[in-house]
């Protein structure tokens, strides 16, 4: 019998995790198919059509990568605090605040060169998302209010602030039809790759996921974070500053979501619009939990979620189904995940 090395074990565990994820999706797809049948559609054709138009063409694939970019970042926003046992449901709000902060830079300093303007926008975007997580983080670190509730509630505030800014001081005078800001100057746009809509935000997002994985696995902070997540009592008695970690993890998570916001705005839209996120923050939550915070799993799940999300557009156009079917599929996936008792579940702190 071959002895499994630690590395081998890790790979086996990873493969096992992937296999489980495939089963989850299969079950969710079957349930989804039943709903399509109930709506009077042919589920096999609908699903095949979705796959063909997303994965079957170069353009479709590039669009999947575009969708995937903010999802990777919002997944990190959830995954990092989750390692401490914290549940950050606030990705959506943090994303909007990041977009607002970054947009402010883009609108206020258009003459700056791209080399200064873009980094400032991204930095402000991260600051905005991080600050939006600071209040829940502080309240949680003091042991006052559960972060799940506060982060969730703040999701309803941030988009309203964005809408206020867009309808008010930032409204473009050039387009009276749609409420939106003026188009960003060229220097405030993220470069795109290979003549597609894929922008360098994807590379940044992948790098951030890799950084997250590295920090968790190899650094002292990863060890301490895992200790807090595993037994906060023991971690405190070992002298690990748990409250500081709570604040840092939630704020850095918020920063990742804020980065998703400004990257989406500067990379794809080139202007800030109300409702520009179709729930990236919530999808990131789903992705993080489906992959149990595993970085490779997060990449895979983001890809799958992007396919599903785009599939919604396809179904909407070709089958006449409302976009909401996507939410049904995502929700079904989450239910299937939560209904499996055999998988390790993160315990709350």
């Amino acid at each position, binding site marked *: 019998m071959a002895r499994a090395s*630690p590395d081998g074990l890790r790979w086996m565990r990873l493969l096992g995790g992937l296999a489980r994820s495939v089963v989850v999706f299969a079950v969710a797809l079957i349930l989804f198919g039943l709903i399509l049948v109930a709506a009077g559609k042919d589920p096999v054709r609908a699903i095949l059509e979705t796959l063909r138009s997303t994965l079957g063409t170069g353009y479709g694939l590039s669009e999947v990568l575009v969708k995937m970019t903010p999802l990777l970042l919002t997944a990190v926003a959830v995954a990092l605090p989750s390692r401490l046992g914290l549940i950050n449901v606030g990705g959506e709000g943090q994303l909007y605040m990041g977009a607002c902060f970054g947009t402010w830079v883009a609108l206020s300093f258009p003459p700056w060169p791209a080399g200064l303007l873009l980094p400032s926008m991204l930095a402000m975007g991260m600051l905005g998302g991080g600050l939006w997580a600071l209040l829940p983080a502080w309240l949680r670190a003091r042991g006052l209010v559960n972060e799940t509730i506060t982060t969730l509630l703040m999701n309803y505030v941030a988009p309203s602030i964005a809408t206020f800014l867009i309808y008010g001081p930032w409204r473009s005078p050039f387009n009276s039809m749609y409420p939106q800001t003026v188009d960003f100057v060229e220097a405030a746009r993220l470069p795109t790759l290979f003549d597609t809509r894929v922008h360098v935000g994807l590379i940044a997002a992948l790098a951030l996921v890799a950084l997250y994985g590295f920090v968790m696995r*190899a*650094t*002292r*902070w990863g*060890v*301490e974070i*895992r*200790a807090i997540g*595993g*037994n906060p*009592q*023991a*971690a*405190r*008695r*070992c*002298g*690990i*500053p748990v409250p500081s970690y709570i604040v840092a993890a939630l704020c850095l998570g918020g920063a990742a979501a804020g980065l998703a916001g400004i990257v989406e705005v500067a990379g794809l839209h080139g202007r800030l619009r109300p409702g520009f996120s179709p729930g990236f923050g919530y999808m990131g939550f789903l992705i993080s939990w489906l992959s149990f915070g595993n970085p490779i799993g997060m990449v895979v799940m983001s890809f799958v979620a992007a396919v599903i999300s785009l599939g919604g557009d396809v179904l909407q156009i070709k089958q006449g189904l409302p976009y909401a079917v996507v939410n049904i599929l995502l929700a079904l996936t989450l239910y299937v995940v939560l209904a499996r008792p055999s998988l390790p579940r993160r315990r709350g702190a």
Partner: protein
Amino acid sequence: MVAAPEPASPTPTPLVSLRGISKRFPGVQANADVDLDIYPGEIHALLGENGAGKSTLAKILYGFYRSDAGRILVRGETVAIHSPLEGRRQQIGMVFQDFTLIPAFSVAENIALFLPDLNFVMDGRAVRRRIESISRRYELEVDPDALVSQLSIGEQQKVELIKQLLADARILILDEPTRVLALHEVDALFRVLEGLRRDGYAILLITHKLKEVLQGADRITVLRGGRVAGSLLRAEASEDRLVGLMFSRKVDRPAERHPGRRPPAYDETPVLKLQGLSTRGEGAETSLKDIDLSVYPGEIVGVAGVSGNGQRELGDVILGMTGVAHGRRILLGEDATALSVGGMRRRGVGFVAENPLTMSAVPFMTVLENLVLTQIDLYARRGGWAMNWDAVRAEAVREFERFGFSLPLDAPARSLSGGNLQRMVIVRELAHRPRLIVASYLTRGLDVQSAEAARRALVRAREDGAGVLLMSEDLEELLALSDRLVVLFAGRIAGIFCPEDTDAIRLGRLMTGGGETEIRHG
């Protein structure tokens, strides 16, 4: 109408009799051949050290546990009590140490939930009326509409009692009811019990506090090691007799000490000095009151006491887990009152917690990862971006060898037995030459050999100049290892001794709240 009061003197037939009750848990004989009679109109105290089998016996009577052998008679007839429900049918009620109330419900709702005759539609007014009438009768005043979450611990206990009385219990078991009460609340409780006694209730009072027993009980049964060590009427009982029954005499003389033992450095700066230190305990925690304590380099200070008298709180406040309400904490001559756990750790404080699984170890991390948690500064490289696991491993192997332990370094901590977990924690906390070691129940869960190795490790740390605060329930261990001994009772230091000048009986008396406070500064 009120039932005619029965005579307070014991009637010939006991209300409850236990005969030959035995109960074994894995590795421990909790009860062995216990006989017990409880008469109506009597307060029967069940006295004993922690682990003497008091709670187990009570839970068998209530139907929470099932005995391995023996039988229970209620009013002279053998009955089968296999669940608390059956216990309640026999009019047996129990007030547990941890209350079973629902904090978000009101007092009336909590009580109504427990009533066997609750209607489908709850008649709140009727319940309230019943609560008020019983409250008045036995001085158990509580506001029926108050939320339980807003009640003090003492008030919650009243609710528990009312609950049992309204559910028609005639035999009341109270498991260490005074543990969580303030002094005036204890007096009030005994007035309540006195009233119940007059009305013919049988009360089984579990406790380890001598004073209460001698004041309030009619009959006292002492358990030791799961067996009945003796049963006395109050008139026959005295502090000395009870202590003699509770604590075995075999530890009268401290065990042989190492002959070349170096005396502690009493002329140097103490590694730890607590000055008038008090804490505010939350919920069921014990508040520490006015603790004055010094630990000198090369000294082991033993802390004796029945658990729950502030040991855990003392350890935590020294480590910096809980805040200091009054007084000062001085580490190595410097004021450390405001230091965090991390700050204390960095200045060389080691801490062996009383429960390694919940308080010290991260179950899903490997042994190696667990070992590094307190000393992560030592092994972090490149500003924290890398860990020197090779160094951790080498050090771990060396230390395990030094302690004579052997553990799988790459196994997750949750796969270890309780004893191995304790070994892991001991190595972690004693490895880096700590200046101060706070150790609670150091040898709990260890086999004889490992316990000896752990004690040797502690003694070696002492020889190396560390100050040690050792909390234990094992008097033999304390008398053998300590240079000085303090007794903790109800959050206060009840006595300070040299082990040579004292014996288990005297300690036992102080541990159970008897005798005068004896403090001699050494």
